[in-house]
């Protein structure tokens, strides 16, 4: 009880009991120690002379970025178009694969618990591994190019869309599903009449949301050779052409903002 009595007999109130308070302090202390330990590890691996130089480096960088060399912009439309295609086609491929996986992973639609675990493993592995890692792998397998980028985006999207969709499936109303089963409908018919209409808005919203994230991710896939604007970015950085880098940044910024705006509008319209 947070209300206790002092030796004088007057009751005092405190937010927590003494024991809980001490446990709280202890947790904070442990957290602070862990943080300092981590900080020390990082600090040991840092060349502090470079860090002291950071301000000058930063201002130097900015001065070299400005003014942007706008005349290179015309060479960037093609890679930007590739980037958009990587994101869009990758999202389409990803949601096509995520759709059945989500139905296998949802507790109320899975045909077998073993299949459910398999689907969950697929979702977790896809979610844990960044699209850039998928891209690195696929570039060594398929060779550099747009295709590797598309598949990398798709593989990463399976986990994201799959997880959100299977959670949506698990939250549907069970009674319409029961009613459809009671008419003598087959398994697939129950899915298409009882489950699908209920999760369709969520599915559309999740897909558009993922598309917006994928635009952002596909801008960097080129750094490992998987096509798109990242290739140009990589080339510009390697040749220290910072005034071209700034042009690319502006283009990425505009594209991502536009896609975010579209995605927010579409999701708003659906809900």
């Amino acid at each position: 009880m947070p209300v206790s009595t002092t030796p004088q007999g007057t009751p005092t109130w405190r937010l927590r009991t003494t024991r809980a308070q001490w446990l709280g302090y202890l947790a904070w202390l442990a957290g602070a120690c862990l943080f300092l330990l981590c900080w020390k590890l990082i600090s040991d691996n840092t060349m502090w002379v470079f860090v002291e130089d950071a301000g000058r480096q930063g201002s130097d960088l900015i001065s070299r970025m400005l003014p942007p060399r706008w005349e290179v912009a015309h060479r960037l439309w093609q890679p930007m178009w590739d980037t958009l295609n990587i994101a869009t086609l990758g999202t389409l491929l990803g949601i096509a694969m995520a759709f059945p996986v989500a139905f296998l992973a949802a507790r109320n639609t899975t045909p077998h618990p073993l299949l459910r675990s398999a689907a969950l493993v697929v979702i977790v592995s896809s979610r844990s591994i960044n699209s850039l890692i998928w891209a690195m792998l696929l570039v060594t397998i398929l060779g550099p190019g747009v295709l590797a980028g598309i598949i990398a985006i798709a593989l990463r999207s399976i986990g994201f869309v799959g997880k959100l969709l299977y959670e949506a499936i698990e939250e549907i109303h069970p009674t319409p599903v029961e009613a459809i089963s009671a008419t003598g409908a087959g398994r697939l018919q129950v899915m298409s009449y009882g489950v699908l209409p209920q999760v369709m808005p969520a599915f559309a919203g999740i897909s558009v949301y993922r598309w917006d994230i994928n635009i952002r991710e596909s801008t960097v896939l080129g750094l490992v050779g998987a096509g798109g604007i990242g290739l140009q970015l990589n080339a510009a950085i390697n040749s220290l052409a910072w005034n071209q880098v700034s042009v690319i940044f502006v283009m990425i910024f505009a594209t991502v903002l536009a896609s975010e705006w579209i995605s927010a509008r579409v999701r708003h319209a659906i809900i």
Partner: protein
Amino acid sequence: MLTLSQVNKRYPTGDRALTDIDLTLPRGQVMALIGPSGAGKSTLIRCVNRLVEPTSGSIRLEETELTRLSGNALRRARRAMAMIFQEYALVDRLTVMENVLSGRLGYVGFWRSFLRRYPADDIAEAFRLLERVGLPHAMDKRADALSGGQRQRVGIARALIQRPRLLLVDEPTASLDPKTSRQIMRLIRELCAERELAAIINIHDVALAQQFADRIVGLRAGEIVFDGKPGELDAETLTTIYGEEEWDTRVQEEEAPSAAASAAPAPATPLTLATGGAR
């Protein structure tokens, strides 16, 4: 036509929902199943169409033993038994017409149903049923745009388009106001008479049960404690079904408002009870 013998249901949690149920329902009979919440009414009718698996016993619809069916045989058996639900159980985001047509799912293949290419006869029949329940104008509305009574009418149309021989009705009036409740019960009753359907109706409202059923079965804690004509139901049997309550005083207190709310004439039986409170 429907025979249950020695049906038991025990849930995995250990709760005994049904104990040794024996019941025979002849063709065309409308039977009301009354009893307190948790007595096993819902479980009983869900055992018949196997939405709930009975633990033991036999359930026969005409010549078919239902308890041993699976896969396509179960699908075919379910077509003959249509169910009407308490919360209507329509698919909200589909149109009224699609909801009605979903009653034919047991008859058409997956792709036809997925593309909504139903046979012309089914569509015409769906429209006739919508006219019969008074909703032809709502055909293209989404189900969630309808009122409670209208939804239940769609639910009835969906059940009838199955061309069933048996209706399983689970609390059809629990979410409706008294007037709509009567209209819905009358509609079910008329449709059963037109099509010579047998029906099991779970219902909380004893007065409605007495007015619209041919036979009343009382269930308590998973066992049948009363089985007879509506007129044979008296205060004493109600006490065996529901437990101790001053049945007669409640009648007088509640008769006036419920009679005022309903446009229908007063029930024929002398004892009119409105025990809606158990839900």
